[in-house]
């Protein structure tokens, strides 16, 4: 789907662009933190220290305890996609590198980016190569199995080691104790191996400190998400996507605590003043299922805004609110963090709770072409959840990073359809 065509004849009469709303302080802090993450990795590389790339729900606390600089391909790929810079990477991956277009677009973007860093490709890096070439990889498969294959390929491509924690899918409603034992054994081994590889030393006291920070951050993140239960919600729910990098890449850092405290304070201030950053009146409250459709985030937002729909609950961002208080707890928590790793009962239970708590009137499912683990049980989840919660839903075809898998017209039509049903439900409710 192409960007809207500008009619040259109307250019001169177009109204001047609206002045941009100043960014809240918490957002400026996020910007600084992200810049520091990349800059610190670059400086570490310059000093000859080993730098890693990590899966997004890997226990970040381990790297933080060891003082390692780690970057996050999924987060980075999302940024490239959101800035509409994905095309050359997708073309390179599906062309010269020989990958199928069926694969996860985060993986495709990153494998092409890695090929440039590895001198196998000459496409221009729009960010100047701030995602520095890794010396090692940190992998968990709690999000999906594609990550395992993606990292296998990166390891072979760049001839670097993978430090892997196999978190195992949970077909049961809980994490079995045998999984906890297996994952815990892997964590212990990984810490030893990572220390040997990087020359760092494990400091139990430092770990406890990092764990405490991480717990505080998880609590604050969960709390900020929870504040959307106010009516009207103090901010537009999509804005929370902007803060995810703090939880994904910097979960064990005090800089994240400062950002999360600021975010909570800003949201509370809005609640106190009865204000919201959501730019129009909140007519409808919905939940969003799936990863953001990064290439079309602004189109998603514009369309929702048109109908006064605020996204107040998301199944996605909360995956990084990971709570535990020791290494066994860490093993259990990382097995259970992402609903992609959990059975449908757990998935539906979490969503049902959110729909009730945030008083959602509908759900929007992103059929993310990149993500089979989300798509291949979504229909059953939709049926059960809609029936149990009595809330209508719609779905649209999109992608977390591949701009080719989206139709603006389809999104608009589907949202329009959902609005009609939500309106009827609202009227029926007010008529008793």
């Amino acid at each position: 789907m192409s960007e809207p065509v500008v009619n040259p004849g109307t250019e001169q009469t177009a109204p001047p662009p609206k002045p941009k709303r100043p960014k809240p302080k918490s957002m400026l802090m996020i910007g600084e933190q992200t810049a520091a993450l990349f800059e610190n990795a670059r400086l570490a590389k310059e000093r000859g220290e080993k730098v890693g790339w990590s899966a997004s729900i890997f226990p970040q606390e381990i790297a933080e305890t060891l003082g390692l600089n780690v970057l996050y391909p999924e987060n980075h790929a999302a940024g490239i996609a959101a800035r509409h810079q994905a095309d050359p990477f997708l073309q390179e991956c599906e062309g010269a590198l020989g990958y199928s277009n069926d694969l996860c677009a985060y993986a495709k973007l990153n494998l092409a980016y890695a090929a440039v860093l590895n001198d196998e490709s000459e496409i221009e890096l729009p960010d100047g190569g701030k995602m520095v070439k890794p010396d090692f990889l940190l992998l968990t498969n709690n999000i999906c199995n594609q990550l395992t294959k993606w990292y296998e390929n990166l390891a072979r491509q760049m001839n670097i080691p993978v430090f892997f924690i196999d978190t195992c899918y949970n077909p049961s409603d809980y994490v079995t104790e045998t999984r906890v034992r297996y994952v815990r054994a892997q964590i212990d081994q990984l810490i030893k191996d990572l220390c040997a590889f990087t020359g760092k030393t494990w400091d139990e006291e430092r770990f406890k400190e990092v764990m405490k920070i991480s717990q505080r951050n998880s609590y604050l993140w969960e709390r900020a998400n929870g504040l959307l239960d106010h009516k009207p919600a103090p901010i537009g729910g999509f804005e929370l996507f902007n803060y995810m990098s703090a939880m994904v890449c910097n979960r064990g850092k005090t800089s994240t605590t400062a950002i999360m405290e600021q975010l909570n304070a800003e949201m509370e201030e809005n609640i106190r003043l009865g204000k919201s950053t959501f730019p129009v009146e909140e007519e409808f409250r919905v939940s969003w299922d799936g990863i953001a459709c990064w290439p079309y985030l602004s189109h998603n937002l514009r369309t929702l805004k048109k109908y006064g729909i605020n996204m107040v609950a998301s199944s996605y961002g909360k995956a990084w609110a990971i709570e535990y208080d020791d290494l066994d707890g860490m093993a259990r928590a990382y097995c259970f963090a992402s609903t992609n790793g959990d059975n449908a009962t757990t998935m539906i239970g979490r969503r049902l709770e959110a729909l009730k708590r945030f008083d959602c009137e509908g759900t929007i499912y992103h059929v993310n072409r990149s993500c089979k683990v989300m798509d291949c049980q979504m229909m059953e989840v939709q049926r059960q959840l809609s029936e149990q919660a009595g809330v209508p839903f719609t779905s649209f075809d999109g992608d977390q990073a591949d701009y080719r898998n989206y139709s603006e017209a389809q999104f608009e039509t589907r949202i329009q359809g959902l609005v009609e049903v939500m309106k009827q439900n609202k009227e029926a409710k007010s008529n008793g």
Partner: protein
Amino acid sequence: MAELRENLARLQAACDNPRTQLDYYLKQGKKVVGCFAPYTPEELVHASGMIPMGLWGGQTEFQKVTAYLPAFACPIMQANMEFALNGVYEGLSAVIIPAICDTLRCMTQNWRFGVPSIPMVPIVYPQNRTSPASVDYLISEFETVLTILSTVTGQMMNEKALCRTIEIYNEHNAAMREFAQIANDHLDVVTPKVRHTVFKSAFFFEKEEHTAIVKEITAALKEQPVHNWTGKKIILTGIAFEPDEVLDILAEYELAVVGDDLAHESRQYRTDTPVTGGGGLKRLALQWNARKGCSLIHELDKPRGKMLARMCQDTGAQGVLTGLMKFCDPEEYDLPFLENDLRQAGVHCTTVSIDQQSSSVEQLRTRIQSFAELI
């Protein structure tokens, strides 16, 4: 020769109509457990006195499954779900589903809610096999499978039965490997389709029965003079290479299959369960940890390309044909390295897209023809 033909016809009949096989066993009062592709602990079913039967998709029209899976899901899983929703699998006491890829994770749940008449037994194999803890973890998964199986079928196994089953399975592995080897001296009889039938049929027979038939086939082949094959020889790799019409195209262009790395075929049989080293469950776990060169099992260094190049050397194959199962992401990740490694080793390779439905077969003809000319 007559006996050879009869045996091959028997295996072909089972592949053409697995339902008849299922009914045959059910009539005998036996219980049958469906085993999803690509790996399930069949031995646990067998040791519990039941018959494991493979569920590897097939030809059907995707209608009811569209309420569960998107069009870009693995066609084997789409077919399995469609068959199940249409009652084709009724009579199975349970199914075992390995959550080994993203689509299979979801299949455990789709089955659970979509096919309540046939209980689902999930298994999650460990992927970090260098971790010693993976063995105990997998043993616990096996024990969970056994517990659920005994609850839903009422049939339990004991250690003695499991040890005997392991022997039976190792013997079957050896029989399949020997067939594959001897078949290469008789490529006039063992066409690509015949070879495939011998492998595929293993999923529809009691193991001992299949071993006996395959041994008879191999013995009959040995009695015949070695055939001097003048066509070309190739290795197949991928998840599965079906339907039969694609194999007929190979034969048409005088391409003989002299080895394979298909999950549906030889990948099942190249790793034996150790005969010593602990109880049956532990040895089965060690077998899992010894498997190599499979896209669905995490392994560093991407060894498949080199493995296939060696297979070409050993068998005299002139090229490798990859049957890329549509929408199979684990295979899609392997493909670029596999092809590069083969090319570097001087082996010709081509990839064709496989989806089991015959409607797309003719599209493959041109690619196969070019491949045949190239090698």
